[in-house]
């Protein structure tokens, strides 16, 4: 509990910014973006050869679009943090094994 409190005391601004951004995603416009707009004008179609688990930021059909957007944002943030956590882990092992320091 003490550690959690320390964490928030140090990083409250970042945590707050992310919460704000996650809420902002619900206000996202449903208009097509620049590329989709061009594709529409020219009548281009996408061909699907790969189907992802969370296509078009829709986690579940039963949820409202707003909830889907927010959950997708949280999911994406978690995935990106996980990837960097793995990179960091790999990097520290690399550093310890080879006794190399890249610290500047």
């Amino acid at each position, binding site marked *: 509990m003490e550690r959690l409190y320390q964490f928030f005391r140090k990083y409250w*601004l*970042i945590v707050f*910014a*992310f919460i704000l*951004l*996650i809420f*902002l*995603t619900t*206000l*996202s*416009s*449903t*208009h*097509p*973006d*620049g*590329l989709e*707009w*061009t594709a529409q*004008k*020219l009548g*281009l179609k*996408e*061909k*699907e*050869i*790969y*189907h*992802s*688990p*969370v*296509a*078009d*930021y829709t986690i579940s059909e039963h949820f409202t679009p707003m909830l889907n*957007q927010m959950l*997708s*944002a949280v*999911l*994406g*943030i978690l*995935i*990106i*943090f996980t*990837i*960097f*956590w793995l*990179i*960091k882990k790999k*990097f*520290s092992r690399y550093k310890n094994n080879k006794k190399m320091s*890249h*610290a*500047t």
Partner: protein
Amino acid sequence: MNTPVIVTTYTLSSGYLIYFWQKVKKQFNEQSVPKIALLAAFIFVAQMINIPISEGTSGHLLGGFLAASLLGPFASVFLISLVLVVQMFVFQDGGLTALGANILNMGIAGVCGSYLFFKIISKLEAQFFQKNQLILFNIFMSAWLSVEIGAILCGIELGLSGFADWKIVVGLMSGVHAIIGVLEGILTVFIYQAIRHIRPDLIYINQKG
């Protein structure tokens, strides 16, 4: 996209990414990895927020030059590519065949092109001005250019694939992204200014460019 364009874009972007990975490995340490992770997460969420523009279209922040101004070009290319890969595999934003082209357009060409432009324009202005008063204008122009480079390249790739006349595609893409680029420029300047006031130690680019 047709097969030659897919193969070419994949080859080019994977080649560049391997090269940048060699460079960026040296930048990774206990302090920089959390910084890069935070910025990646921020850019991911920022790309989800579409801001409506006129004529039934919308734009969102790409964050290419924003990342370059905080981390330098090598880490930024890596970061943007990672965000694009996550978007593609998890949320199906941009297809598997277009991934190579996306990384090439927005990641490599967008980030490196705008960063080089920023370097050059800053060097030129340093000849005429004592202090660099124009740094915000330079950031705005570089961010605008990072969007525009990506859009024009994407137009050329679509044209080369033979879906439509490339002049029309490039015209439409660069036209609509010229407006989206203004949005990108304004947002980049605001975020840069905010970070410069709160944590000036995080800024990578300096007054001399």
